[in-house]
Every structure is written in C-alpha cells, then in structure tokens.
C-alpha cells in the first residue's frame, strides 16, 4: 500500500514542524495595520484595541456622568419555582371576604403568588357572584403600609417588638393571675363556626360581640315576636312591593350585596310585558337605596316609629295611628298601606331602625301582609350581626367596677365608635391584661398592653357561616407578609391547646365533612350549602307595648341629625383604604371627607346661598353641629330629597393618626352623637343646634352639577306608566335621525358620515348598561381601579378635578320643576369610554396614539402618546383621564413627585407608590406615566387572555369567557359585556330584547358608541308628557334644581 502525501506548498513538505506551528497561529502574518512609526499594531502608542477600550470607557463614563439616575427596583426571581405557579398565569382561589360580620364569597386572583384582585364567587347564589366596593378594595388592605407588622407590648408609653413565644408565656401567666375576675373576648360579630367553637372551649371566657353599627333592636324585636334572637333572610326577588323604612338595604344595611342581587331581579323589565317591583322608601336623608326608590317620603328621624305605627294602623288597625302633620307623608303612608294590602304575600317591609319597638311594629306589619314565609325566610336566619348593645354597656360598667381581669379585643374598636368612647377609654385602664389582635393601630389597639396582630383574610384559613346552613371558606392566597398570627391560634394557646388554628380548622372541617377530599372540594368551591333551620312562628304579644312606647316617644327638636354609613367607608373600616376614600359617594359624589348633608330648605334657613359660586367652587360653608355638649364642625353639602329638618352625617371619619395617612385628617368623628336609649343605641339625635362658623372648607367632589338638564340625548328616564303608554319613544327618535341623515340608504351608520366604516370582521366587543338595575354602589369603580392600576390621586388632586377614575357613575337628581328640594328620582349612569366606532378622539390625535381595533375597541398606545389632551377635549363623554402628575412613580425622571408651589401631592400618592403597596398592581396592565392620556380599555387584557385561552383549547371564544372587571363586580348584572357579532351572546340578546329602552348616549353625534344603555324606568303612575318628543327639546318636568345654576 503506497503512502501518498498530499501537499500544498514547499513549506509543508520541507519544514513540516514550523509549518504546523504557523497553522496553529491565528495571525500567521503581522496584521497589516501599522502605526506611523512602523511599529507593530500592539506596540503603537494608542493601539486599536486600546482605542476601542477608551471608546467604550468614555461612552460609559459620559453616560454615567450625564446620569439619568435610574431608581433601583428590586425584583427577586423564584430560586425554586413553586409547583403550581406558572409565571404570567393567574390563579384563582375561592375565599371569603369577611369584615365585622359582612360576608361575601369571593375568588382571589393571584399572580406570581400575590393576590391582586377580588372577584365574586359565581357559585354563591345568594350574592349572585357579586361583590361590594369594600370587598373589591380589601385586597389593597393586605398591602397597607400601616398594618401592624409584628407582635408588640407596651413598655412605658411605647410599644416594643416582642415574640409570640414570649407573649404567649407572659399572657398565660397573666391569665393565671386574674382568678375571680372575668376574662372577656370582645369582638365584632363572629361568623366563623370553628372560631365559635374555640371561644366556647376557652375556659371561663366571656364572649361579647359588639357592632359599631348595631342591629340589636332587630334581634331583640324578633326575639320578642317569637322568632328567636335572629335576623331572617329577605327575599327581595319575591317581593312585588318593597317598603323600606329607612333601611339602606342596597348600600349598607345588613348584607347589601345579597339584597341587591334579589332586588335587581325585580327591576329588570321585560318589554313585552313591562312590569317591575314597586319600591317605596321612607327615610330622613337621601340614601343610596332611597335614590333607587320609585316613590320616596321623608320624615324626621324621630318620626320613624310614627311612620311604622301609621303604616300598621292603616293596614290592620291593631294600633292607633299617631298624628303626623306632614300631609305628603300622611298620604304616602295611606298609599303604601293600600299597595301593601293589595300585594299581600308578595310584599316586604324592612326597617333600618335600631329601636326594638319600631322593629316589633315592622314585624307586625310583615305579619299583616303575609311576608313571613314568602318574602321573609326564617329557615335561613343570617349571622351578619349578633351584637346586643346592652352587653357592651354592661361590659364597660364591669370594667369600670374592676370586675374584668383580662380583655381580648378583635375587630372591635370601641375607643372610636362606642357611644361613650371616653368612658370606655377610662374603663380599659382598669383592666389588668388587655390584648388586641388588631391588624392596624386603631384607636383601641393603641390602648391595649399587648398587640398580637391577626392575619389579613387573604393570608388566613377560616370559615364563615353567613346564613344558617351556608358555609363559605377562607383559604390563604399568600404567605403572611408580616409576623402576624391568627387570633384563634392565640386563643387556642392560651387555653392550653398547642395546635394552631390552621390545623384546628382543617381537622374541624375534615371531621365534619367526613373526608379530606370532601374538605378539599369544599375549599375549592369556596361555598357549601346545607340544610337551613325550621323557622318559627309570629307572636303579636309585644305589639301593644311597643306601640304605646312609640306613641309616647319624645318629639324631636327643631333640627335633627341622622348618622349614616357611607357605602365606601362603612362604620370606619374602609377609612384606611385609599381606593375607598377616593370612591365618590353615590349620592354626594364627594370623596375623602365627611360633611353634613342638608336640605335646600335648611340651606335657605342657614343662609347658604345656592348660587353659582356654591356649585363652582369646592369651598363649602362650615357650621358647628352640637348635640348636648358634643360638637363637630363640618362643611355642608346641599342635597335635594333630604328631610327639611334633618341633617345627615356619615360615621367612620376623623380617625387617629396611627391608622395612617389615608384615614388621618379625613372628616370628623360623629360617633359621639349616638346615644343609648336603655335597650339599644340610637343612630340619630333628636335635637341639634347649628351655628355658622363663617368659614369655608373644601370638599372634593368628582361631579358638581346635579341635573342632566333635561338632555334626553344623555339620559333617558321615564315612568312605567309612560313607558307602557308610549313604549316607542326611543325607536321613533332613532327613526327620525335615520330619516334626516340617511335618506337614500337608511343606513345611519354609513351614510351619515364622511369617514369610512371600520371593518370588524371577527369579534366586535360591546357593552350594555341597564340603568334600571344600576343602583350606584361603586363596586365596579373600585374593581376598575384594581384591575387597571388606576392611580389614586388624593384629596387635593380630586379638588383640582384631576381624579383618574376610568369608570365613573354619573348621578343626576330629577326634581319637581317648581320645588327642586322635592326629589322625584335619582338616575345612576355608569359612564366609561364608549369605544365609539367613529371616535372623535381618534381623528384628532396628531400622532395616532389612540386608534381603533378591528374588534371595535378604542385603544390607547401609551408609549406613543405625547399628551396634547386634544382627545379629551373632543370626547363628548369626558371619560379620558390625563396623568397630570407622576401619580404612579412610573415616570423615568427622578424627584418629580415633590411638587411645592402648585399641586403638592398628598401623602397617599406616595403611599400608593410604596414597594409594598405596588404589589397590588396588575402585571397585565401598563402603569401609565405622567403626561399620557388613559381611559377605559374594555379590559383589553382580559379579552386578549380569553382569546388566547380559547385558541389554546382550539375552540371558539364563548360568551362570558371575557368579562370586564366592572361587569364581574356588578351584583345586579347591570353591566353586560360580550361579542355583539355573536347573536347568541348575552349582550346581543339584551339589545335584541330591549329595543324600546336601548339607547346610545349622544346618538345624534354619530360617534357610534359600542356601549348601549337601557332606559331608567321608575315604577310610578305619573305620565311624563312630551316624552315622545325626542330630539333635543328639553323636558320641563325633569328640569333641574334651578337655584343651583342661577346666581341669586
């Protein structure tokens, strides 16, 4: 075999060694770069590589020197990926919003292990999958920077951090030493069965439930009427006639979400056979519920008993009717009684009074109209409120007498909301061992020696039994953020049980349900419905006594004051929540403060001029209101529909500084105005004196004009009688427009414009809003806040009309034309971006930052927006919101939130930008920076996610796959969203079924909105004339409180 050698050159043949060496050398020859001095490249003075080094260094140095200081943001990735977490994918856990007895079954949406949004649990039938504003906002409480972060004990005047081991030992020792004295657990209403068991097993523990706003009168009255100390379930959906005697059952009374779910069913209108429930409201101030009433009658707070008596007398004559000098009220009682009689068995009367006697009479009324068993369900009594006022009074007396050795407090804040808070404060100093489980440094926690903060509900295990037989479970959605511990664990430990509550709870339910699988299933569903109770029968025994007590009740003074809860703040628990503080009150549209609501008549009497300045400037006159020796100074807001001599003030404000900057300095505390009448607490004061302080205070309202000025293009509302008589007002109006603007083709959409039509070949998103169902609660507004990272701007920015709400609820008062104080109705109109197909905002943007999608959405490209605000000017609906300042900290410029001369930002804005608080941000939605415009996006992140999911599952997008946050939050199903090209979708169906009520706001502008509204119908017999007119003529009947617009 010959050995051939293939060679390429002589070098390879003759000098193989050197050749190989050279082959290995990357640069066989000197590179052809030489410096002038003919030295090699690398020997040159500034060789090429060094040049690149210098270049790199100097560029970097220049960049650093020019220093756009980028704020450091810490992002810590998972070192070990948790099994169940997929980055970018949301997980939902069924849990339960529980707050002082309020129970709403919810789903908590978590992203990367952080709960970021609360949604209603659709499996919960009694709430119809709805939520309240407070439930929606509760996720923000989890990230509150002012939460108690660790256990502590008082040393001297200060609190020092401590450990649970140490405190357990100290407290156990202290408990051993209280022998002979009472050990008391003071809490708000506890709805958890497992917790109740723990409490009952604690040796010698006296449990006192205390509710800031009590329903003791009802509990006691029901007991007297033979039903036991219970509150029944109310079936508002079964009632044809609903009479509320001052109960704000859609806003704050007992379980508004549940009641709204039922109530709204009766308010939906079938156009083929138009009918709806009839809602009468007797009340002293204009409540959220009263705003929805078909007919309202006002009375003084001290007349609540007289109204109930009058009604009962008119119904069955078992009591004598009291003298009522107000003729309108008197006629109203007669009318309501007749209506109730005619609808026996299909009617319901509820009362918001905490007076046992009034509630006894109400029970008698309900018995007389056959409500028990039909609209009132005694088989499922509710557990929302269980406190008895006298128990608390006795406790304070015991504490003062030195009979209480240990006091544990959870959920109750008597140092703030007890009628004799000062007395409580002095009494607590006589208790040796005081422990608070407070999540925050509220007024009472600061007085206790030991503080062992409890978890937020999103960090907790637990259960809640809102109604007999219905259990809703709580499961944690995040590892506890701070060194907190369930108060149940503490109670177990101190009772000598070493299991913690988590295990206890698991064992409790596993035992009850039989298997661990059953327990897991229950947790997964979140809600479990079992059998209810048996009910009870009515006894008329206490009626006579109650009637005589009411008849002899003291008459009120010249002016009376009634205390109410705001839908946002409630009893005061919402005061620390920035979303809730910034949620405009449904009636007053005011944020951040409380104030005195007065009637127009009162305003005249007090010399408050309702002129132009009153409306256009936020400064409102301040008066001092005094009940006995208790005084507060508050600005007044004039609200039509108030009882002439009643002043209404919201509780829950005027909080301690330790609660944080959100609650502090917002409003005044009016709990001192409440009083104990011997059995229960009265939330009104029958005699208040008013003195003018000759000063003014600003109130931050998001809406200042109260009437829709009869502009039927904006708001359509009518009476049921008018609608029946003349159902085609809206179709005729549309027909007129078609005849005017689309003569040749009758295609209003295409012919009436010079702009080309957007082609929407696939999906077309649309929304319909039923103004008849919307009761203005604001849950959607907060849901939108949470879902879309809408910034909180603080009081001072709201005062400058800089609020950022993407979704607002417009509220219009409809008054009698001759007497604006005589309110005929209130219209709530949720207003968000209308996603016009012919959008005026789109064609004015010079840089096309806002444009139209093929799915009919009006979109914002924030990165492209340069902030000319032309779009906002040209938006007829005024739904676009501009980032006037760096509210979110998203700006790339440092130090631009320390405004000084103009537009100083409130502390809350900085609080919302805290690293902890920012954990609530929805990672699917861009946080907008200063200088860009933003607005409702139809929750485009949700529609995109739904489409993606459908695509992955290889199926057609179904109806309900994509729900907007506002739709999801709405208990009343007032907002329905979906694909309008899908004829079977709910939104298409509603539009098809409600052609006579369906209208577009400002349809004549031909902006072609994708949101339809359903006309508001009040169930009255009044025939509104000219209603067939349409066009732009004003309807004189619904004209405004004229005095609010004209200078005097």
């Amino acid at each position: 075999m010959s050995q051939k050698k293939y060679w390429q050159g002589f070098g390879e043949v003759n000098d193989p060694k050197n050749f190989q060496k050279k082959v290995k050398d990357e640069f066989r020859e000197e590179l052809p770069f030489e410096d002038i001095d003919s030295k090699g490249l690398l020997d040159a003075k500034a060789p090429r590589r060094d040049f690149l080094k210098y270049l790199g260094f100097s560029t970097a140095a220049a960049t650093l020197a020019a220093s756009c200081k980028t704020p450091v943001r810490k992002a810590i990735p998972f070192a070990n990926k948790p099994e169940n977490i997929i980055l970018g994918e949301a997980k939902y856990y069924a849990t339960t919003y529980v707050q002082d007895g309020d129970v709403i079954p919810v789903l908590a949406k978590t992203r990367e292990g952080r709960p970021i949004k609360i949604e209603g649990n659709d499996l919960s039938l009694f709430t119809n999958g709805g939520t309240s504003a407070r439930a929606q906002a509760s996720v923000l409480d989890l990230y509150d920077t002012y939460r108690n972060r660790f256990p502590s004990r008082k040393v001297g005047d200060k609190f020092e951090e401590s450990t649970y081991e140490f405190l357990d030992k100290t407290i156990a020792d202290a408990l051993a030493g209280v022998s002979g004295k009472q050990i008391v657990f003071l809490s708000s209403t506890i709805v958890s069965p497992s917790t109740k068991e723990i409490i009952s097993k604690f040796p010698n523990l006296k449990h006192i439930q205390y509710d800031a706003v009590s329903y003791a009168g009802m509990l006691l009255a029901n007991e007297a009427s033979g039903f036991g100390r219970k509150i029944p379930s109310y079936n508002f959906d079964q009632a044809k006639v609903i009479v509320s005697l001052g109960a704000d059952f859609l806003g704050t009374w007992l379980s508004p979400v549940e009641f709204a779910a039922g109530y709204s069913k009766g308010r939906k209108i079938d156009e083929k056979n138009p009918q709806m429930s009839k809602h009468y409201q007797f009340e002293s101030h204009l409540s959220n519920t009263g705003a929805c009433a078909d007919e309202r009658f006002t009375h003084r707070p001290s007349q609540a008993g007289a109204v109930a008596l009058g009604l009962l007398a008119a119904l069955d004559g078992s009591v004598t009717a009291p003298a009522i000098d107000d003729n309108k009220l008197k006629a109203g009682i007669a009318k309501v009684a007749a209506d109730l009689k005619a609808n026996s068995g299909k009617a319901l009367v509820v009362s918001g009074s905490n007076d046992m006697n009034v509630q006894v009479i109400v029970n008698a009324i309900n018995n007389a109209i056959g409500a028990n068993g039909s609209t009132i369900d005694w088989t499922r009594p509710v557990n929302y409120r269980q406190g008895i006022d006298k128990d608390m009074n006795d406790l304070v007396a015991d504490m003062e007498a030195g009979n209480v050795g240990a006091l544990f407090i959870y959920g109750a804040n008597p140092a703030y909301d007890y009628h004799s808070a000062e007395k409580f404060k002095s009494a607590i100093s006589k208790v040796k061992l005081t422990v608070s489980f407070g999540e925050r440094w509220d007024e009472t926690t600061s007085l206790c020696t030991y503080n062992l903060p409890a978890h937020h509900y999103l960090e907790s295990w637990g259960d809640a039994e809102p109604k007999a037989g219905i259990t809703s479970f709580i499961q944690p959605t995040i590892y506890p953020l701070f060194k907190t511990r369930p108060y149940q664990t503490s109670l177990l430990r101190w009772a000598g049980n070493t299991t913690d509550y988590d295990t206890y709870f698991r064992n409790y339910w596993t035992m009850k349900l039989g298997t661990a699988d059953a327990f897991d299933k229950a947790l997964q569903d979140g809600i479990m419905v079992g059998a209810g109770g048996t009910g009870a029968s009515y006894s008329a025994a206490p009626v006579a006594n109650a009637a005589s007590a009411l008849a002899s009740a003291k008459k009120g003074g010249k002016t009376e004051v009634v205390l109410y809860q705001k839908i946002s703040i409630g009893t005061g628990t919402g005061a620390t929540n920035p979303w809730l503080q910034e949620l405009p009150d449904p009636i007053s549209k005011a944020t951040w403060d409380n104030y005195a609501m007065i009637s127009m008549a009162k305003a005249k009497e007090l010399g408050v001029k309702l002129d132009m300045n009153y409306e256009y400037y936020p400064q409102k006159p301040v008066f001092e209101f005094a009940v006995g020796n208790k005084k507060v100074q508050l600005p007044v807001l004039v609200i039509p529909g108030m009882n002439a001599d009643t002043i209404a003030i919201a509780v829950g404000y005027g909080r301690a500084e330790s609660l944080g900057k959100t609650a502090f300095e917002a409003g005044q505390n009016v709990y001192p105005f409440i009083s104990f009448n011997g059995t229960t607490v009265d939330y009104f004061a029958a005699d208040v004196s008013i003195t003018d302080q000759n000063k003014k205070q600003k109130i931050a309202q998001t809406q200042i004009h109260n009437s829709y000025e009869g502009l039927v293009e904006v708001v359509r509302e009518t009476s049921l009688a008018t609608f029946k008589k003349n159902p085609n007002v809206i179709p005729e109006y549309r027909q007129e427009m078609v005849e005017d603007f689309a003569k040749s083709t009758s295609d209003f959409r295409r012919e009436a414009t010079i702009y080309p039509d957007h082609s929407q070949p696939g999906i077309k998103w649309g929304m319909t809003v039923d103004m008849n169902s919307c009761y203005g609660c604001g849950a959607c507004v907060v849901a939108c806040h949470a879902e879309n990272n809408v910034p909180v701007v603080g009081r001072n920015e709201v005062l400058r009309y800089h609020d950022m709400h993407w979704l607002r609820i417009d509220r219009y008062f409809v008054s009698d034309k001759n007497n604006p104080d005589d309110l005929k109705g209130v219209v709530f109109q949720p207003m968000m971006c209308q996603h016009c197909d012919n959008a005026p905002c789109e064609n004015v943007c010079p840089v096309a930052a806002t444009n139209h999608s093929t799915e009919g959405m009006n979109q914002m490209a924030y990165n492209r927006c340069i902030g000319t605000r032309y779009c906002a000017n040209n938006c007829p609906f005024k739904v676009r919101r501009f980032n006037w300042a760096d509210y979110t900290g998203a700006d790339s410029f440092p130090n631009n939130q320390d405004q000084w001369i103009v537009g100083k930002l409130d502390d809350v804005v900085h609080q919302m930008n805290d690293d902890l608080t920012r954990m609530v941000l929805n990672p699917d939605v861009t946080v907008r920076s200063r200088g860009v415009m933003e607005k409702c996006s139809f929750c485009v992140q949700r529609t995109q996610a739904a489409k993606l999911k459908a695509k992955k599952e290889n199926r057609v997008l179904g109806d309900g796959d994509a729900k907007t946050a506002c739709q999801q939050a709405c208990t009343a199903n007032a907002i329905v969203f979906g694909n309008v090209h899908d004829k079977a979708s709910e939104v298409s169906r509603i539009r098809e079924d409600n052609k006579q009520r369906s209208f577009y706001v400002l349809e004549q502008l031909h902006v072609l909105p994708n949101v339809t509204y359903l006309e508001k119908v009040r169930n009255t017999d009044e025939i509104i004339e000219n209603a067939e007119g349409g066009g732009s003529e004003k309807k004189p009947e619904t004209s405004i409180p004229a005095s609010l617009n004209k200078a005097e």
Partner: protein
Amino acid sequence: MALLRYESQVRAPLVAGDKDYHQVTEDICRPVETRPTKAWWIGFSISVLVLIFGIVSVTMEVTYGVGQWNLNKTIGWGWDITNFVWWIGIGHAGTLISAILLLFRQGWRTGVNRAAEAMTIFAVICAGQFPIWHMGRVWDAFFVFPYPNTRGPLWVNFNSPLLWDVFAISTYFTVSLLFWYSGLIPDVATLRDRAKLKWRKLFYGIAAFGWTGSTKHWQRHEALSLVLAGLATPLVLSVHTIVSFDFATSVVPGWHTTIFPPYFVAGAIFSGFAMVQTLLVVTRKVLALEEYITIEHIDVMNKIIVLTGSIVGIAYLTELFIAWYGGNAFEWHAFKENRLNLASPYGWAYWIMMGCNVLSPQIFWFRKMRRNLFVTFFMSILVNIGMWFERFVIIVTSIYREYLPSAWSTYYSPTIWEVGFYMGTFGLFFTCYFLFAKFFPVIALAEIKHILKKNGENFKEKMGELESETVEEFAEKHGHDHGA
C-alpha cells in the same frame, strides 16, 4: 413755463421732514450705531427678567407635569392654547403688511413693515412655545413629524388638525423668516459699510451675505421679494384657518362652527394691527422716528382695525344667531348659558370680548380719534385684551360645560406657572424686539428710499428756479452762445 409742471395734490408725503437719502440712512442707523440708551437697558433688563420667570415656569411644568397648571379632566386646554392662538394671531399683521400690501403696491407699508415682520417672527416663536410645552411628554414632541422610523408602520395622523398646525406653523415661520431676512440684507450691508468697529464689520459682514448692491443683486432681491410675497399671501389666510380647524373640526359645541376660518383670519389681522400699533407708537417715539412712522401710518392702521373689528363683530353676531337658529340644544346652551349669561362663571369673559373687540374699535370712525396717539395706544391694548378673551371664550367656555352635565367643570383659573409661562413669552417677545431694535434697522432702509419724495422735491426746486427765470435769463444761462 407752467406747462412743464404737473403735481398731484392728493397725498401728503409718506416721509415727512424733507429728507434726503443720506439723512434717511443717518436717522435710521443712528439707534443701531450709538450706544444703547438708559431706557433701552431698563426695558431690556425687565424683558430678560420676565423671560427668566417664564423659563422657570416652564421648567416647573416640565419637571412636575401639566398638573402644574390648573387644567382638569374637563378643561384640557386653557391658557396654553388661548395664548397660542393669540400670539399666532398677532403675527398676522406683519405678514399682511409685508406680503399683501407689497403685492398691492401700498407705499406706506415701507415705514412699518420691518418692525411688523419682526413682530411676526417673534410672535410666531412665542406662539410655538405653547403647543410644544403644553404636551404632557414634551421630550417626545418629535413624534409629530412624519419622519422615517424604526417603529414599524408608525406614522403621524394626517386627519388631525393638530398635525396640520405643525405644518402650517412651521411653513409660516419659515416663509416669514426668509421674507424678513431677505428684506434685511441690503440694510445690513449698509450697516456693514458704515461700520467702524471690527466686530461690527465682521457681524454685519457675515449677516449681509456678501451684498454688493450690484444691479444683479437688486434684481434678484426684488424677484425674491415678490416670490416670497406670493408665498406669504396665502399663508395670511391659511395659517389661522388651519388653527381655527383645531376647533371647527371638533365635536365640541361652541367649537364646531363653520364660520371659524374667516372669523379667525379677520380676528388675527385685527389683533395683529393692534399689536403693531402698540409697538410702533412707542418705537417711533423712543427711537425718534416720527418722521418715518407718521401719524398717517397710525391713521391707516386704525382704519384697518375698525374694519377688521367690525368683521369680527359681525362674525360674533352671526355665530350667535346660528347657534340659536340651528336649534341644536347643546350649541345654544354653550352660547346662551356659558357665554351670554353674565351670571355664569365665565359670562364676564364673553362681555369683555364683546366690549373690547366690537364696541370699542367703533371709536375709530372718528378721524380725530384715529390720529390721537393716546387713544390709539389705549385702544390697541384694549383690542389685544379683547382678542385674548376671544380665544379664552372659545376654548374654555365651550369645554367647561358641554355635553354631559356630570362632567361640567369646577371653576378654572390659572396657576402662577400658567401666568408665568404667558408672561415669559412677553419676556421672550420683548427681549427679541429690543435686540432687534438695537442691532437692526427698525425701518426698511432700502425700501423707504423708494418712496422718498426727495426726487420730486429736487425737481420742483429746480423747476421753480427755472420758472422764475425769464426767457432771456434762461437763454443767457443755458444758451450755447458762450460769448462770441
């Protein structure tokens, strides 16, 4: 010999004082070549201070956001765009004087055109500040230019009137600047030739672009002036028309009005002439140019003011009538409640506008008033106040209460930085104007020489001598018989 003489008696000379060419050059160059006076220093210092305050105001706004102004969710534009339209309007008189009057061969324009053109330029610079700094993200302002970019098919929106503004104003500024500067070149050359100091020679030498005054130069100069005048003439009409489209093409009641283009143009000329009056009444006095900017000029311009003021007045009334006659409830509301109603929050602004723009100029029907400097000055200020309010009325009173009563706004009043920004543009304007008056001739030196009566006067003088001579004397003097 009287047959040889024909003299028109119709017009008084446009330049008084029987100047010859040299005297004109001396008079006009004097302020440029002497040291600045104390009054100049005071005025200039104040202007610069005010400008600095304006810079601070804008800095605050850019640092902290547009929230430094009191605009709100309903009122997206307030003082910013009001000032923008106002300044743009001011500019119009300059263009009208330089372009349209040039085409119409109005000789009197030469006395005022230089100052008016400078005013145009400075006013447009001031106007331009507002749309720039009113942006929420001014650092991205370049997005408004249709430049090729790497952002995919991202392009400007040619439907947007704001984009039209970008083109209209940049074109306007460019043409005005070229026009002004091309007119300046021969004058700058004169200054260069007269300069004694080295820096002046250098400065004016560069600025004169090598002007030699050759016939070819003059020929081209004239041609260029005509071309630029031809370009600028439609701009007088188009710029404010396009600015008015910002409003007219919108859906806002009170903005959405077809009358806006002519009405805005008339208003712009109206306010522009008022501003010219304000400036010239002072300038002619301070720089001792009364013989160049004569009372005749003032009179003529006052006539234009009463004419355009009346056009504006008719436009107001027409607009009002149509708002009522049109039967659109929203539009009528904007006029009746937001404007006419004196008790409404901004009713006063409407009536200030009416008073200043429609009623007060009527005083110029009287010749005595037209020729009264104090009245002229006072009126020019009134007109400018009125025209500012016109823009304010259009912008703010339309949007603060429009379609949805729920969105009706609280009272809008400017913050210190909004006022500061506006004042700052005055600082900018007058700083520029003072520098201009110091470094350039405020009267078009070359052009005014065209209309000097000196030639005629010389002729007359010589003719007079001739006429007074007898034939014999004439023959004696001019005969060719030089003594036999």
